[in-house]
């Protein structure tokens, strides 16, 4: 017997049951609303790729902005400093600041960075002890010196040799393990004792045939992250072959880079400092009673003392003639001639030097021909 359902018909019981469960009802829909909803939905779906593209584009734009902001921040906070005269460039990141002049003028310093005050040291030091003492327990000082044979070595009476100068390391690793207690650098002489409460790394190396000495001094409480930053800055150092065509006259060519002052020796045996200010002017402080800066004689009255700053107002010098006796500051002996002296404590204004009762004694007669800038 065929099933009644095979023809699609339902038995009366099922029909009655289902009809009672959900009774027939004159539901009426709204086709117009369905069409509108479908149109809206279609528009949304059609616009979806565009929306996704827009969202992706916006994300990319935001990403680019974020990255550029980060880059801008880095640019604002940090600085790539290039020194075409010395042929080096390096990142300078906060809180490091770059010294615009040699802090240890009697050294072969070509660069100094410090997290502390940039104080000029005594010319008898290879490292600026005042600046090192000022970094504190958590500060870091980085300096780069260069051995420049033969002239410099001759002037300092040291032998020329390459012992201890390895090829530049892949990375300047600063850690307890690499800490150096060395006070003597081959071919360079004594660095002087470590400033109490500091750690020191001395890394002689060669790069492009140049012999360089990286010296890092850190306060006792500097964390490894601080050392890592110093390491990173040193790693950012780029050294070029020694520049040729130095604008400084031959007898002064061991001179300086923009914004820096450098101790040099002249051909006639006098001591001098030469500097090129940031505005490009050349300033010469020479071991005589005359001083000129950008061709302007700035010797002091009566040949007593020559004090001035560069055109950019960045540095000043005091020239002590060979026959000068003791140099006193506030009645304390700070130097014994013939020594060029740079005073770090009163560097802002020559008048301060006078007001701080700096006096020089036994001043001989000035030479007949003052030295002027080329």
């Amino acid at each position, binding site marked *: 017997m065929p099933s009644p359902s095979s023809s699609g018909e339902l038995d009366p019981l099922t029909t009655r049951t289902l009809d009672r469960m959900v009774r027939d009802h004159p*539901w009426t*829909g709204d086709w117009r609303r369905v069409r509108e909803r479908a149109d809206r939905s279609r528009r949304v779906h059609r616009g979806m790729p565009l929306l996704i593209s827009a969202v992706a584009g916006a994300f990319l734009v935001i990403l680019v902005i974020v990255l550029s902001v980060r880059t801008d921040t880095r640019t604002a906070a940090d600085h790539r400093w290039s020194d075409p005269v010395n042929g080096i460039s390096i990142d300078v990141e906060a809180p490091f600041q770059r010294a615009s002049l040699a802090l240890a003028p009697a050294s072969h310093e070509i660069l100094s960075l410090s997290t502390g005050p940039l104080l000029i040291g005594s010319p008898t030091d290879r490292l600026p002890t005042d600046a090192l003492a000022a970094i504190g327990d958590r500060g870091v000082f980085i300096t780069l010196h260069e051995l420049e044979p033969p002239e410099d070595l001759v002037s300092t009476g040291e032998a020329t040799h390459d012992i201890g100068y390895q090829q530049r390391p892949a990375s300047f690793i600063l850690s307890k393990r690499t800490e150096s207690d060395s006070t003597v650098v081959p071919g360079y002489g004594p660095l002087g004792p470590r400033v109490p409460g500091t750690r020191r790394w001395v890394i002689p190396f060669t790069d492009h045939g140049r012999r360089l000495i990286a010296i890092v001094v850190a306060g006792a409480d500097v964390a490894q992250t601080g050392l890592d930053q110093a390491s990173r800055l040193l790693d950012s150092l780029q050294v070029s072959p020694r520049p040729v065509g130095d604008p400084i006259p031959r007898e002064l060519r061991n001179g300086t880079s923009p914004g820096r002052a450098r101790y040099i020796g002249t051909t006639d045996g006098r001591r001098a400092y030469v500097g090129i200010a940031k505005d490009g002017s050349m300033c010469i402080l020479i071991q005589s009673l005359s001083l000129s800066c950008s061709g302007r004689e700035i010797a002091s009255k009566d040949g007593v003392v020559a004090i001035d700053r560069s055109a950019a107002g960045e540095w000043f010098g005091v020239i002590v003639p060979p026959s000068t006796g003791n140099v006193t500051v506030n009645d304390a002996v700070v130097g014994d001639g013939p020594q060029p002296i740079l005073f770090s404590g009163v560097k802002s204004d020559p008048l301060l030097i006078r007001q701080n009762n700096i006096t020089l004694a036994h001043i001989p007669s000035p030479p007949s021909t003052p030295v002027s800038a080329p």
Partner: protein
Amino acid sequence: MDETPARGPDIAAPGDPHDVLGALYRDRYARMVRFATARLGDAEAAEDAVNDTFVTALRRMDGLRDPGSLEAWTWSILINHTRMERRRRRWFSGSPPDLSQVEAPASPIVDRELREVVRRLPTRQRTVLFLRFYGDLPNTTIAEVLGISTGTVGATLHRAQETLRRILKERTE
């Protein structure tokens, strides 16, 4: 209720396919809502499901390869929508919809006790029965909607009625 399966709109006729779907909507709306109400136990949700079904159909109509299967295709969309709605309710309530509690006594829709009886039917039997009775679909269309043979539809309907009769008998005893 008319025992003869209703004829749908002439969907094979030339013209705007959207108009054909509109004709289907107008012709089948009440039956589809009744079917969805039986599945969901909620007339309001059922109407939403039917409207959503046609929105979906309108949006995807361009992808329909066989215009002759428009009605079966639309019903299968409705089954999917009601299934998703039941699943959604289960997720949010933690249990399947309570068919005995969803309609007010004054509603023309519900007999709560019979709902509980019908719920005891296996899922496929219940679906086939609903499509046949509420949807007023012929066995061939039901087979097309569910992707089974016409013979299976007939056998399932037969078993569903037998099961229902047995349940009702147990209930009265």
